[in-house]
């Protein structure tokens, strides 16, 4: 049954991808990309990756769609030119596909417990997590403590990308700031006149926020953690901005607060790392944070997950506002 379901979902993914590339209407392509992400998330879930599925559903189907739509509003909705060198590109792509397909015959059997992937550190993580960290979700344990350096690096990549978007899109636009303020923000009102989306969104926003916080603080026990929670909380605010207008959202959570959130998250993560050094151990070693090393690990993970959540929320919302505030040329 699962096999059939898996094949069905994968086929749908391929069909959706073909549709995305084929359509000339970029609006349709972006909507299909949202569906594509949701299907991929369902696939991840079938493959036992609950945390990844949650992230992909929140980020891919939610936030990425909104960002693409924001960019389309500022550029154009249709792809004008026909594809030049289509046959050459097709030939290259088809031959590359054949090479990759040929390579798949050398891959280990699907689900084989003796595959090389499962011989390295993976089993060690599964075995030692109860002893060293004692939290149920191994994914969170690996993310937070065993591979804390990686996660720190990734948080800084997200942070840097956020700063980059702000540099690109804030100020220096076609309309001068005074002009922008003088113009009544017609487009910023959003869907305020549409009763049903507005009521539904108003009902949903608090629950999405609550679920985001649950995912944040329950990440040690079930699927979840800072990355997913950040995406979910950002999605709640974006939904609010879509129905109530951007101005109101900025009243609730001003740009300065977002910047502070972003920076504070990254600093919190780095600070927890430095605390390890100050307390006489190594960078990002949480076991010295409490008298009991296992307790210390747990405190460390909660703190760095909070840092991750803050940075991801701050960056995603800053990016959204940067796109939304820009006037169309």
């Amino acid at each position, binding site marked *: 049954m699962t096999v059939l379901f898996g*094949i069905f979902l994968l086929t749908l993914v391929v069909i959706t991808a073909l549709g995305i590339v084929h359509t000339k209407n970029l609006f349709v392509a972006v909507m299909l990309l949202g569906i594509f992400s949701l299907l991929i998330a369902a696939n991840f879930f079938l493959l036992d990756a609950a945390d990844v599925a949650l992230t992909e559903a929140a980020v891919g189907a939610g936030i990425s769609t909104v960002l693409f739509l924001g960019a389309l509003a500022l550029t154009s909705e249709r*792809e004008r030119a026909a594809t030049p060198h289509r046959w050459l590109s097709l030939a290259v792509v088809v031959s590359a596909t054949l090479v990759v397909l040929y390579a798949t015959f050398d891959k280990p059997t699907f689900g084989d417990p003796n595959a090389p992937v499962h011989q390295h550190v993976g089993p060690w993580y599964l075995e030692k997590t109860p002893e060293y960290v004692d939290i149920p979700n191994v994914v969170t344990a690996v993310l937070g403590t065993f591979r804390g350096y990686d996660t720190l690096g990734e948080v800084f990549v997200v942070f840097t990308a956020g700063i980059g978007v702000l540099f690109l899109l804030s100020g220096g636009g076609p309309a001068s700031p005074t002009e922008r303020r003088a113009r009544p923000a017609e487009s910023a009102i959003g869907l305020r006149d549409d009763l049903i989306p507005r009521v539904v969104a108003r009902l949903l926003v608090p629950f999405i926020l609550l679920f985001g916080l649950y995912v944040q603080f329950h990440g040690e026990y079930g699927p979840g953690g800072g990355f997913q929670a950040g995406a979910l909380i950002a999605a709640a605010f974006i939904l609010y901005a879509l129905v109530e207008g951007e101005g109101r959202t900025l009243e609730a959570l001003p740009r300065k607060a977002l910047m502070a959130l972003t920076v504070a998250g990254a600093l919190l993560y780095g600070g927890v790392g430095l605390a390890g050094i100050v307390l006489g151990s190594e960078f990002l070693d949480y076991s010295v944070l409490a008298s009991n090393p296992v307790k210390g690990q747990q405190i460390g993970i909660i703190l760095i997950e909070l840092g991750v959540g803050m940075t991801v929320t701050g960056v995603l919302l800053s990016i959204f506002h940067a796109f939304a505030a820009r006037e169309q040329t």
Partner: protein
Amino acid sequence: MQLLGIYHYWVFAVLLMIGFYAVVAKVNLVKKLIGLSIFQAAVFLLYITMSKVSGGTAPIFSESAAGQLFSNPLPQVLILTAIVVGISTTALGLGIVVRIKERYGTIEEHEIQEIDRR
């Protein structure tokens, strides 16, 4: 199970190349970024496919999962963070596209090159 495994790898290969086609053949910059997203998703799918152990379950300890096999948590961690990094870099790319549109008035690659040549 064997069939599903081969099928996963093939879908990975096909998705990878659909994304690649959009990146190399399309001239619209937003379409290229969309292609890049598909390409990225294909790589994610490959990693998660590798993490699966047959008969295993999600790597979360609980009473009901006692004594059960678990799928490999490591690829899942790598991809989880990669998804969030992916959206940030896509946003950066979209930011650049918006600036290009403002400067050149178009997001079609060949028109941009023509303006540059002048």
